[in-house]
């Protein structure tokens, strides 16, 4: 603080400090604390606020576990997000390794440019693309019918559609961190291991994966978080039977009219994501600064 004033003078330094305070206090801390406070209060009529019924309670949190439908949707969201994370990891790891260590510099660079394009395209549009492909009379069913693999069109929308759309939307959040961390590995290490007779699998298990753990952890954290907090894919690619936890939260706010419970559910989602971040970092022994790179 004093250093800021010393470096930039009281005017400019004070202005910078005010901006930082506005952001951290006004936009990060205060909203979250208010949300926490809100989630611990019952849903009251405006007239009752401040009255005898206005007491702290954890009922908004316990409601989730008491309601079997909501509980199963919550668990499905956790499980589905983990599935998205694992699928993207399995699909992208070979490519990341190839780009970082096998391909020529030109090849890797061309690939990178090619991959950045879908990365920049709006998530809503990427999901729309899958909406079209998976639609009942859409290209996927037409293709499979044409090949004779299916006899009648399949309804893809639902759990399958949601997961497929998410894998598609978030796959590059897994690829890029892994690619970045593998590219810092000395190729000589791989050659040494090979010359000493290590098998391909062993080289990956003992050298590449340990070296790339920060990238893998980053990719896992982001894909899980994005999937768990996703709203577009479930809304566009789901069916009434495949609701996602974010949709339940949305309903509390804009259809159920119980903001307090919605706030509690949102906090549960937030805590879930934070817990996944913490556990992943611990598991991979990586610190936060490596992830935010």
């Amino acid at each position: 603080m004093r250093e800021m004033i010393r470096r930039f003078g009281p005017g400019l330094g004070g202005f910078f400090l005010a901006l930082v305070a506005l952001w951290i206090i006004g936009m990060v801390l205060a909203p979250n604390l208010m949300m926490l406070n809100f989630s611990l209060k019952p849903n009251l009529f405006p007239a009752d606020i401040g009255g005898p019924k206005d007491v702290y309670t954890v009922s908004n949190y316990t409601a989730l576990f008491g309601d079997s439908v909501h509980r199963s949707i919550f668990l499905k969201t956790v499980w589905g997000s983990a599935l998205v994370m694992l699928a993207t990891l399995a699909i992208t790891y070979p490519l990341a390794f190839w780009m970082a260590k096998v391909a020529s510099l030109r090849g890797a660079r061309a690939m990178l440019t090619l991959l950045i394009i879908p990365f920049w395209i709006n998530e809503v549009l990427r999901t729309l693309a899958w909406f079209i492909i998976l639609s009942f009379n859409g290209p996927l069913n037409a293709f499979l019918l044409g090949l004779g693999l299916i006899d009648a069109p399949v309804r893809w929308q639902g759990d399958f559609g949601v997961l497929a759309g998410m894998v598609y939307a978030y796959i590059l959040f897994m690829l890029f961190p892994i690619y970045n961390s593998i590219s810092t590995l000395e190729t000589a290490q791989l050659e040494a291991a090979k010359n000493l007779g290590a098998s391909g699998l062993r080289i990956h298990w003992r050298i590449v994966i340990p070296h790339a753990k920060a990238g893998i952890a980053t990719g896992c954290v982001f894909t899980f978080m994005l999937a768990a907090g996703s709203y577009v894919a479930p809304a566009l690619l789901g069916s009434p039977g495949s609701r996602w936890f974010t949709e339940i939260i949305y309903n509390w706010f804009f259809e159920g009219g119980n903001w307090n419970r919605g706030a509690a559910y949102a906090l549960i989602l937030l805590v879930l994501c934070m817990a996944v971040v913490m556990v992943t970092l611990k598991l991979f022994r990586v610190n936060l600064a490596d992830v935010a790179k």
Partner: protein
Amino acid sequence: MSKPRPVTPLDRLSRALPKLLFAAYLTLFLAYLFLPLVIMSAATFNTSKFPTVTPWLGTTLGWFQELWNDAAMWKALWLSLGIGLAVVAFALPVGTAAALFLTSLNARARGIFYAVMVSPLLTPGVAIGIATLILWRQAGIAGGTFLIVLAQATFITAYVMLMVVARLQRFDRTQEEAALGLGASKGLIFRRILLPFLKPALIAAGFIAFLQSFENYNTTLFVRGTDTPLTVYIATKVRTGLTPAVNALALILIALTLVTALVMELNRRRKEG
């Protein structure tokens, strides 16, 4: 020592197999990445009222016309552009100030503030929207453009902060000391030394910030009130009456993305020489 076996075609195949498999994997991956976008774009030119490429009912450019005549689309587009600019105008100075603040701290304090500052990036977008909505309701301000800008800026500022911190790590503080020794004021030093040094990072960060804002859906959804930015417009269309006019919009946005990606890439290569 036994004599080496002659190389059979089978050996050749088993040696080539990993390469073949990898080539197949690469092809499939690229197809997976790009076919959906190609199909979505191609559907723009099909006369079919529902966007698809199967069956192909006839080729038309009519959906561009319909998109052009859609007043709601224009309104949503202008709103998104305005929100994007407002977010950039907020996130650039605040993110820069945060980065300077962070680098002025000792290691312990830096760790704590760093965690608080990057936490919006590790928070689900819906939670940021909800927290903003709840806080401002206490002040009697309901969802709308103002809250969209605030909620988006909450996490976009963190991106700016990270990019500026990365650039600051290569800054040589002795330049500032030299200028101070020569009698320059602190404001002048900031304007003439630090700011020019940060300029490339600020341009890149401004660009990323705008894009993040323009593409945002999750956070926006909760704080939008009755305002409809472009992403919300598209998602609503999908559910209430999707026609290939939306594909025309997607095609235009993809084309713009392609051009920007190419320009950025060429620019980067030119700089690297």
